[in-house]
């Protein structure tokens, strides 16, 4: 009895202390005072965020966290990774438990407007796809009339699937499943002909099969799932920092700045945009309230966007995702960073 009263007291004391510290300055000031960035990630999604055998977080979303930490604090390892689930992610951000959520979250109207968050950009353009066993001989999703489909319940994929089939005048039989792990088992056991989820998830799942070549991911993508990092409404300075860190990674790829050459290219190049980006010219860093070399630090942390992509989910990794929509606009993709000037 006494002990739980004590814990309750601790709780109140902690709340009061937390309230006091929350009053001074915005998120940037808090992060700088704390010395670490609290970054919300998934509890584990192949290629995007997962702890490795040494307990170090690795992945594409993790790369965004590290880049922001490097930009703000100059140290890519000054990140406290907070694992969040689908249910807890928005509360964690709204309550201030995390400063930034980089957790393959789809940018939708209601999340942006109604939940009062600010998506600072898109770091991965995903979309719902279909995977079928090769022996089925299907080459297009339009041939799936009458198929049994494994689908995760309670997600937007369920609604997208219904839309796709009814708009193409086809029928299907859903096999509801709860998690991706369960889906893999059901699909391999032949409980369903088709497994549908985000294309990146399909690629990651397929990579784990004993014989990945026995399964094909169909070319149709039936939904738009722009995934991006998000912050709270109302702290625009902090939102700007995260947005422009992401843009810096994208611009760096476009301009040919990599983690290998970021150290010297700023002074050796004549390209004014690179010089502005890396802080050897102009005052962009100071406008954000950061050091002049903020972007250089962010790029040095894990490389530019292309390096992050190739290192975590690209074609050289077991997941083997092609750039597709996530190529630079110059290569026919959708990545298009506003200019640094």
């Amino acid at each position, binding site marked *: *009895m*006494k*002990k*739980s*009263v*004590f*814990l*309750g*007291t*601790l*709780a*109140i*004391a*902690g*709340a009061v*202390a*937390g*309230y006091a*510290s*929350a009053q001074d300055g915005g998120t940037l000031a*808090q992060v700088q005072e704390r010395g670490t960035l609290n970054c919300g990630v*998934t*509890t*584990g*999604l*192949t*290629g995007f*965020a*997962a*702890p*490795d*055998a040494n*307990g170090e977080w*690795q992945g594409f979303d993790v790369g965004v966290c590290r880049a922001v930490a490097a930009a703000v604090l100059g140290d890519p390892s000054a990140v*406290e990774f*907070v*694992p*969040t*689930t689908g*249910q*807890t992610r928005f*509360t*964690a951000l*709204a*309550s*201030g*438990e995390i400063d930034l959520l980089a957790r393959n979250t789809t940018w939708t109207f209601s999340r942006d407007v109604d939940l009062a968050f600010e998506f600072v950009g898109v770091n991965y353009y995903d979309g719902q796809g279909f995977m079928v066993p090769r022996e089925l001989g299907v080459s297009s999703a339009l041939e799936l009339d009458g198929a049994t489909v494994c689908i995760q319940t309670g997600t937007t994929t369920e609604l997208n699937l219904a839309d796709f089939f009814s708009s193409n005048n086809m029928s299907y039989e859903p096999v509801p499943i709860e998690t991706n*792990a369960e889906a*893999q*088992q059901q699909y391999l056991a032949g409980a369903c002909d088709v497994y549908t989820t985000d294309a990146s998830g399909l690629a*990651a*799942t397929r*990579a*784990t*099969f*004993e014989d990945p070549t026995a399964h094909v991911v169909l070319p149709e993508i039936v939904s738009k799932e722009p995934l991006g990092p998000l912050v709270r409404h109302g702290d625009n300075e902090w939102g700007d920092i995260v947005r422009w860190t992401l843009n810096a990674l994208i611009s760096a790829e476009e301009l040919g700045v990599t983690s290998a050459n970021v150290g010297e290219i700023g002074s050796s190049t004549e390209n004014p945009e690179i010089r502005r980006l890396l802080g050897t010219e102009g005052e962009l860093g100071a406008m954000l309230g950061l050091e002049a070399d903020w972007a250089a630090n962010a790029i040095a942390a894990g490389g530019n966007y292309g390096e992050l992509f190739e290192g975590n989910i690209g074609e050289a*990794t*077991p*997941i083997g995702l092609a750039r597709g929509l996530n190529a630079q606009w110059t290569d026919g993709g959708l990545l298009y960073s506003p200019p640094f000037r």
Partner: protein
Amino acid sequence: MSELHSETALDTAYVRTEMLPEQTPPVTVSGPIKWARENLFSSVWNALMTIISIYVIYVVLVAILPWMLNGIWDAGSLNECREIRDARGGSGEHGHDVACWAVLVDRWDQLMFGFYPSDLYWRPILALVLFLTAIAPVLYDSLPRKMLILTVLMPFLCFWLLWGGSIWTPIVVALGFVLGWAVVKFGEGTLGSMLATIGAILVPILFWMYLTGPLISGLHSILPIGIQSVESRAFGGFLLAFVIGASGIILSMPLGVILALGRQSDLFIINKCSVIFIEVIRGVPLIVWLFTAQLLLGYFLPPGSNFDLMVRVIIMVTLFSSAYIAEVIRGGLAALPRGQYEGADSLGLNYWQSMQLIILPQALKISIPGIVSSFIGLFKDTVLVVFIGLFDPIGFSNAIRADTDWNGIYWELFIFIGLCFFICCFGMSRYSQYLERKLATDHR
């Protein structure tokens, strides 16, 4: 006819002169065969069922045992496991499928300690040893009573070992309990028992609220003794399950006793408060309380407040479990004959004395099986924290699968986690049976 008979009887003296040696009973009515005949083949139906059961067990074992025993222990990823298996060649029908236990070797530290700093693993291990040593005198009364001193100190020592930081934190917090005890001890004569009880609750709370913080920092600046502090976020795997489970068990027991007594109380407010608390907590699933701890508190508490998620979870688990314990103990209290209460009163004992000396020892004894099964349930329920994003063993099994090295591995992790939980829960269950036998004073 009778003549003939008597004649032969006379001729051949058919009377034994010595005793026959004792013979072993026929094999069919003794030993294993008798047991098998009685238990397995007592009728045609039973014989048939036995044979079918043996066949089913055989089929299951043939499928599972080679898979488990031929498992691969030394590999860096699931694909390496598959390569090793293929290199071995498909030995027989089930040679194709073998367990890949290597994931346990590779991720052992994470499954056990989570993100706890690896050079500090001795601290949780020492805390576990301390915990076991400290509860031993409670569990077995043949051990020296002096060890109970360690039991009292254990929560503070374990807290300090696990979370680290200044040594003054646990000392000053413990001081609050000493204050409460002192108020009861010395205040009872001057203030009366009612005021002393209230004072014993209020004084430590005020002490913790207003004096603890400055006292800790003051003492620490004078005499800085401490060990490296570890954040709650670093806790994971079985360490997390044990910490939540053990704290919940230790804290919910006294709270449960108090709630049970409160529900039996004649004092209107105490009675109704206990009833409402118990019914509300029991009427809502644990997972809802955990979401409350994680989500609603996040909304209610001011932004930026940094109230440890693990402490929130421990509080919720404790409250939840204490409501169940209270009902189990109330069952024990209700089972005592009225005469026990009246006997206590007739001896002139006051309420606390009669509870402490007469009622509770008997009621708790009756309640042991229920209490232990509540504890087992509580310990297993700790895996529910996976839904609020804490990395308990189940949470880690998901995180491990999210690594490209181990994506696609299921059974090995689940079997291991299940086995660990089984060992703990089976141990608790056996202990409760031992205790019941030892305390059995009923009329047989």
